[in-house]
């Protein structure tokens, strides 16, 4: 299988704070990888580096075989067009209605006329189980679950081959969590996309993931199949999966 996403020895610092210390990771085409790891361990920084929102100081990130670190704006944009991204808190545009949010990339990037864009928004919302009666609402008036779903609809609107989810279920109740997990799995299956999901939530790991990776102290210290994850006797994994305070993981501030 070919690697759709491949990180080699990626380093990223903010001033004196060394967040990523040589991350090696790859995701095969059509595969769903979940990344787990404590809060502040650099999961979002890793994802933003892949998206080109942050530039690593060292290392290489390849998308479908193409090295992307330091790519010029025009070429970077072509790479970005293969991506869909659901941000941690949705990151919907407050000033735009739901339908304009969902079809934003199509309208801005591909100059799609408004009536077509509205249709596209309707279709994408249907994929995440939302009715067209919310098309003209603004993000402020959406509940947390709806906000996430509209964000999901926006991420998949252009049918991208690679989709990223940053903590898609954080802050949702258990039922909505399950709804979102299944939506993600179903959408991804339907689109045949390659995905990377950051999560703290073991139910997301089981529902969404084919493989898992554990990020700890700036490096990927474990990768493997989901079944192997649950059966592993690696003390780091056992502690993380079972949510135990005692174990080898150094807890910041503790």
């Amino acid at each position: 299988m070919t690697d759709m996403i491949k990180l080699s020895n990626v380093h990223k610092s903010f001033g004196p704070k060394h967040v990523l210390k040589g991350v090696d990771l790859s995701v095969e085409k059509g595969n769903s990888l979940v990344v787990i790891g404590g809060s502040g361990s650099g999961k979002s920084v890793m994802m933003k580096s892949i998206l080109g929102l942050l530039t690593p100081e060292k290392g290489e990130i390849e998308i479908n075989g193409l090295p992307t670190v330091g790519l010029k704006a025009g070429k970077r944009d072509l790479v970005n067009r293969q991506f869909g991204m659901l941000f941690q808190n949705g990151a919907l545009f407050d000033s735009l209605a739901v339908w304009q949010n969902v079809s934003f990339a199509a309208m801005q990037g591909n100059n799609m006329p408004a009536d077509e864009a509205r249709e596209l928004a309707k279709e994408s919302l249907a994929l995440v189980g939302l009715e067209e009666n919310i098309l003209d609402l603004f993000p402020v008036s959406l509940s947390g679950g709806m906000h996430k779903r509209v964000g999901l609809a926006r991420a998949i609107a252009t049918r991208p081959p690679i989709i990223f989810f940053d903590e898609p279920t954080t802050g949702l109740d258990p039922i909505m969590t399950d709804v979102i997990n299944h939506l993600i799995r179903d959408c991804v299956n339907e689109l045949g996309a390659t995905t990377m999901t950051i999560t703290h939530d073991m139910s997301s790991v089981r529902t969404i993931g084919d493989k898992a990776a554990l990020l700890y102290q700036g490096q990927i210290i474990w990768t493997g199949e989901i079944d192997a994850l649950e059966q592993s006797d690696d003390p780091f994994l056992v502690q993380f999966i079972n949510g135990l305070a005692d174990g080898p993981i150094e807890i910041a501030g503790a």
Partner: protein
Amino acid sequence: MNPLARIGRFFLGFLAHTGRLTVFIAHSFVAIIQPPYYVRLIGQQMVRIGYFSLPVVALTSFFTGGVLALQIYYGGNQFNSEAIVASIVALGITRELGPVLGGLMVAGRVSAAIAAEIGTMRVTEQIDALTTLSTEPFKYLVAPRVIAAVLSMPLLALVADIIGIMGGFVVGTQSLGFNPAIYMQLTLDFITPDDITSGLIKAAVFGFIIAIMGCYHGYNSAGGAQGVGRATTNAVVSASILILSANYLMTSLLFSS
């Protein structure tokens, strides 16, 4: 800490800040020049920046024109006061007070609003989302605001000129007993097109300062709601200081010849 080290640190910080701002402005210029142009967004911003600032700018300049007339009258020689009041109000408003006070009022309203809006977009990852949706934030957010402010401010300054002179006129004719027809004639005799254009050029520069400061501080805000609050304050303070210092610089350039 060693006082020398403290000065050194302050100086380095200042240089770093200036460098970042220069890069930001250069990036903004590229975004303004290169397509795509978001014409509809420019229109929207002109309404927000220009149209909605009309009441504050009008009120400010009306009272400024009025108080200027009073002070010149009381402070000056009462002989031939009509001509002196009319000319100083006209020159003072068109050359300095219309654009500068208008600029400061708009800085308070607009720099703050821009910084808060873009800052919120930054800390809620909406700016990151723009990039992942194939849209350049400088083109989509910064360029329309800068263009709209540069176009709106001269129009606002023109309004401020007219209403400020009206303020002087109302005070002069109603409470100082000047003859309306003569006062108007004197005003028109004293004003030259250069007085007005110099004020409008200043206003355009102030518009640039106002929008850039709002965008810059908003764009670089970090650390949640508190960070956005800090960005808002910094935007207004730095825009105001830059307006006053740019005004001094432009006055010495425009009127030295």
